[in-house]
């Protein structure tokens, strides 16, 4: 339906934006691309008193690749990530996942910071941030702080951000060139919300023994999830049929998804195992 009434400001600096959020006393919300927030206003899941549009604030739309990793500004759009050829080597898991984000038109407006703040467990970026041990930089009335992804997501569409805090960037740590990775997602129609998804990466020694396994799951919990039992089951093993079957079973048993009109809980559990098996297979078979 039509949107609820709200006031609107588009400040030119982060300091002004924070001041507006403070003045809004919990009722004001930052607006990035609006591709999730406008729909939830249409559904009346949010009725802010004011939207503080971040579009005029300079410096939030940069993708910087350096020794510490890939730093992505909050207002970088999905389109910008997909157009950046450097990411295919700097952080290949990221474009592979972002390729599944929504549809063409949404990818032209939706932003990285907006998706992290929206904290939808069915979205790709929150799970990628969690899987990669990303750190989210924010600014608020008490100053700047850096929040590990594991501490950001507290519930469905809920984060540990204060109401006057704005995400400014996310840092995805540096990625060794030899790292192996896979991303698998299943949805009824490409670009729709995932029924389940898996992001995985690991490092291996010369004989192919896995270490540093990181496994994230999309759309099978109230928040993005790390599958720590499956990670433990994978570390120290070589990728073969027996490992794939065992780790998939552990992952499937580790999640406790809800069923809904799109898929039953049992189906989602089974998907987690299948998708992890496929993702690990792709990781192991990709030519280095």
């Amino acid at each position, binding site marked *: 339906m039509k*949107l609820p*009434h709200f006031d609107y400001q588009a400040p030119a600096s982060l300091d002004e934006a924070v001041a507006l959020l403070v003045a809004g006393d919990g009722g004001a919300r930052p607006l990035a691309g609006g591709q999730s927030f406008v729909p939830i206003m249409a559904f009346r899941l949010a009725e802010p008193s004011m939207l503080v549009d971040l579009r005029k604030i300079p410096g939030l739309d940069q993708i910087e690749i350096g020794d510490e990793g890939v730093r992505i500004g909050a207002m970088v759009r999905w389109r910008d990530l997909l157009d950046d050829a450097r990411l295919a080597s700097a952080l290949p898991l990221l474009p592979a996942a972002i390729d599944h984000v*929504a549809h*063409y038109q949404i990818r032209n*407006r939706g932003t990285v910071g907006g998706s992290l703040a929206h904290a939808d467990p069915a979205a790709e970026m929150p799970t990628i941030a969690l899987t990669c041990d990303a750190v989210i930089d924010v600014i608020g009335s008490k100053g700047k702080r850096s929040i590990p992804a594991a501490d950001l997501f507290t519930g469905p569409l809920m984060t540990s951000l204060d109401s006057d805090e704005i995400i400014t960037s996310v840092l995805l740590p540096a990625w060794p060139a030899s790292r192996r990775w896979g991303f698998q997602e299943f949805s009824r129609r490409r670009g729709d919300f995932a029924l389940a998804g898996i992001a995985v990466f690991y490092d291996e020694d010369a004989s192919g023994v896995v270490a540093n396994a990181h496994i994230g799951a999309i759309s099978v919990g109230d928040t993005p999830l790390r599958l720590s039992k499956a990670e433990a089951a994978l570390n120290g093993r070589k990728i073969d049929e027996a490992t794939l079957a065992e780790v998939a079973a552990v992952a499937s048993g580790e999640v406790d998804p809800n069923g809904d009109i799109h898929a039953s809980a049992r189906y989602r559990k089974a998907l987690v195992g299948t998708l992890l098996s496929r993702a690990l297979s792709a990781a192991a078979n990709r030519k280095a």
Partner: protein
Amino acid sequence: MKIELEVNGAAVSAEVTPRMTLADCLRHELHLTGTHVGCEHGVCGACTVIVNGDAVRGCLMLAVQAQGAKVTTVEGLSLEEGLTPLQQAFKHHHALQCGFCTPGMLTTLHALLTDEPEASEERIRDVISGNICRCTGYVPIIEAAMDARASYQQSRGDK
């Protein structure tokens, strides 16, 4: 709030409330009713317009966010002398029946083929996956888009 923008090549202004979407502004304030509003929450694609060269959902962008932008609607695609090659291809392949989705299909495909005149059938299918059509079964729309690519390749070559 007063906004000033460029729509289909003409400078225009409109008096809008913050909650008004760009799609509603185009239809109700600027009387460009070619842009259709379907689901109003970013799922159906009927409201697609082109903002600064990018196809976007008109229902997920506020009119106030279009301050200073260059907007192209389906009205802006048409030529003085008649249909564009893309529109002609839609007609030829029966790529529309009720026509409700057609403005969004045309604007989406125009943006795509302007950027990527060599787009493959797979790419075209992927891009219009965000536009729902309940009449055609999509196949004639894909055929029309594939057919229209030649004119976009031609016009890119002319530049």
